């Protein structure tokens, strides 16, 4: 049964959605701590995550004949997306550290939150569209 889902973009979309949701929490925490002395801005590793996505896509197409969409093997996904990708680290944003030890930058935090929530909306809509397509195929009714 699993190959029905593994032959779609769904596994990667699920990972992206999970990443987006957890990142939203981290960014909300940054905004909430705008005035906290000594707080350092944190974020999830976005570029590393996108690299892992690209690697997962490459691994998948190396197993499939040309012109086909190979399955996303759960084993490979587990290797490429370790838990460290979903943990928040202090980021070196190069922004000014104020006298209270906080390296706040409210524009950056709000911007990242906005971008993240727009991306999240889109990923969820795409997941929903995939599910609907599968449903249409299964029920034989458009």
């Amino acid at each position, binding site marked *: 049964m699993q190959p029905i889902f593994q032959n779609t973009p769904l596994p990667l979309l699920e990972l992206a959605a999970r990443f987006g949701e957890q990142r939203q929490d981290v960014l909300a925490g940054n905004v909430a701590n705008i005035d906290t002395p000594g707080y350092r801005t944190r974020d999830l590793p976005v570029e590393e995550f996108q690299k892992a996505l690209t690697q997962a896509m490459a691994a998948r197409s190396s197993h499939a004949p040309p012109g086909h969409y190979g399955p996303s093997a759960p084993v490979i996904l587990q290797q490429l997306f370790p838990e460290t990708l979903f943990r928040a680290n202090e980021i070196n944003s190069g922004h000014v550290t104020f006298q209270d030890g906080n390296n706040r930058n409210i524009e950056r935090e709000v911007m990242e939150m906005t971008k993240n929530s727009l991306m999240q909306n889109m990923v969820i809509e795409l997941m929903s569209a995939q599910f609907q397509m599968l449903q249409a*195929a299964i029920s034989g009714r458009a």
Partner: protein
Amino acid sequence: MTTPIAGLGSQSGLSFIDPTLLGGSSTSSPSVQGGTAFQKLLLQSLSQVNDMQLQSNAAVEELISGGSITQVETLSAVKKADLALKMMLQIRNQLLDAYNELQQVRI
């Protein structure tokens, strides 16, 4: 995406239609010769639906991995694949209904 319908087109052939008939060669028996052009059309359409699914998948992945595709391109590729699949489903349903009707005629 290998849905039951799209998967048929991407494999080496449908089990109930002989692919050697696609060329419309003179060695084929008269009763299936008339159906060859239609079979060809059908198989072409199936592979087109499959191609659109593949394009939609590629567009989605390009988008979520930070590629240079715009949001609108991805969404319209997905929607087009969706509509193509649904069109194919309707065609399949109509064909099945027609076949069932023909079955009734004999009795």
